[in-house]
């Protein structure tokens, strides 16, 4: 896969975060057309059914629900705490892990199944040794969709 991006723009924090030259960033996955397993990013072999070269690229949804989480109070030096480490099931398939932001990091304020949106921002100012900045994804609460998603 060749990646097109502005040479001066931020780099994607993970390979499955795509930054098109013209348009909004998104998360990319692939679907095994034989067994319907969904994976993050690109791959050629399905680790569920073993099929080779049966993958179809999928643009993953920016909407999902909180599956499970932890509220992290102790981390490595330099990492701001507390924060919510969240596992989010995306609508239409795919599960992603990331920080849930714009929410009080308190178990009474977090509900399993709460609707969240994937949002894209700078990677908390972190830069690599060459000075490159990165674009990351985060989750933030969104209002309940009419369909509900529990």
């Amino acid at each position, binding site marked *: 896969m060749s990646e097109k991006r502005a040479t001066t723009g931020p*780099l994607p*924090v*993970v390979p499955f975060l795509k930054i098109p030259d013209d348009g909004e960033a998104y998360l990319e996955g692939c679907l095994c057309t034989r067994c319907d*397993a*969904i*994976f*993050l990013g690109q791959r050629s072999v399905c*680790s*569920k059914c073993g099929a080779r070269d049966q993958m179809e690229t999928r643009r993953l949804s920016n909407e999902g629900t909180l*599956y*499970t*989480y*932890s*509220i*992290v*109070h*102790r*981390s*490595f030096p330099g*990492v*701001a*705490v507390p*924060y919510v*480490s*969240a*596992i989010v*099931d995306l609508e239409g398939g795919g*599960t*992603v*892990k*990331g*920080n849930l932001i714009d929410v009080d990091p308190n*178990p009474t304020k977090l509900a*399993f199944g709460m609707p969240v949106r994937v949002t894209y921002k700078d*990677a*908390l100012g*972190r*830069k*690599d040794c060459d000075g*490159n900045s*990165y674009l*990351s*994804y985060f989750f933030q609460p969104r209002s309940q969709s009419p369909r509900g998603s529990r």
Partner: protein
Amino acid sequence: MSDVYVLGIDMMKFGRFPSMTVPELGARAALMALDDAGLTIMQMESMYCANLGQANGMVGQRILREIGQTGIPVVNCANACASGATAFREAWMSIKAGLFDLVLAVGVEQMGRGLLGGGGSNGISTEGLLGSGTMPAVFAEAGMEHSRKYGTSLEQFAKVSVKNHHHSTMNPKAMYQYETPLDTVMNAEMIAYPNTKLMCSVNVDGAAAAVLGSERKARELGLSRAVRVRASALTSDEWQERDLVMPDINTCTRSAAKKSYEMAGVGPRDLDLVELHDCFATAEILHYENLGLCRDGEGGKMIDAGDTVLGGRIPVNVSGGLLSKGHPLGATGIANIYEVSMHLRGEAGKRQVDGARMGLAHVFGLGSACAIHILERVTQ
């Protein structure tokens, strides 16, 4: 096919030994296990050695350089927190295969302090950016999945730590020997909700070793203190829809439990004690269900009812568990087998499970590997 026996087994008191090298720690446990068996390194025909911190450092061979270089085959095993049990299982397999009659298995680890996991990416650190890869958070997320399904509470998870710390007051080889009341556990520093500091296993240095023997050798040497290995199972994770971002600690434990119960021809009700992988308090409740000690969703009730405390229906982690005995990664798998063996031999002192005939030792290595051994007292 003939059975394999544990002829000797021992562990160091877990603690912090910064002045000792990894091979020195392993050598100490190896000699203790050989002494327990009444044998010497000269009689060992093969060796399997578990260690993670120096996984590319030929630790097994360096242990033999400390205690006897006899030229036997040595295999070094790294399988996350299942490494020790993997070395034990490899020893078991080599005897099952008929290659050897006496084999030494050693597990050893020297740990730093602080958080395990996290970090690691090409460009920038993603810790605290894409959630947390630290072990307390990963196992917290697994516990919260149980809360989501069954309403398991912080208090129920905390009770695991109360119980295991209580057990460790009776184990002189545990890192810690003190009681931690429920409010102390719940009010300890929050590391990754719902795991407080006292609900996280202790990073310690330590080593454990076992001498395994064929049935022929066990009969020749006398079976009075031998422990029969009734089952050995090792699994890796089957595909799960979330497992690329959320390690599944349940499925491979369930499949290893099923295989080991089938191999032994027994069920959970036949067990007198269980040592399971309580790397975090959240994990223990999940494993009650994964090992079939109770029905799905009843793990929280099981800790509330006191079923798993010494004297309860099925005592779990009477050693103090990883939470209080300590968790030297490579040594843990053999240390769990040591604990079960002590009870089956009636040598567990104050924490002895009365009349223990059969026990199960479980470890889970994230990534994932699950190893289960079912052990039985040899009735004369």
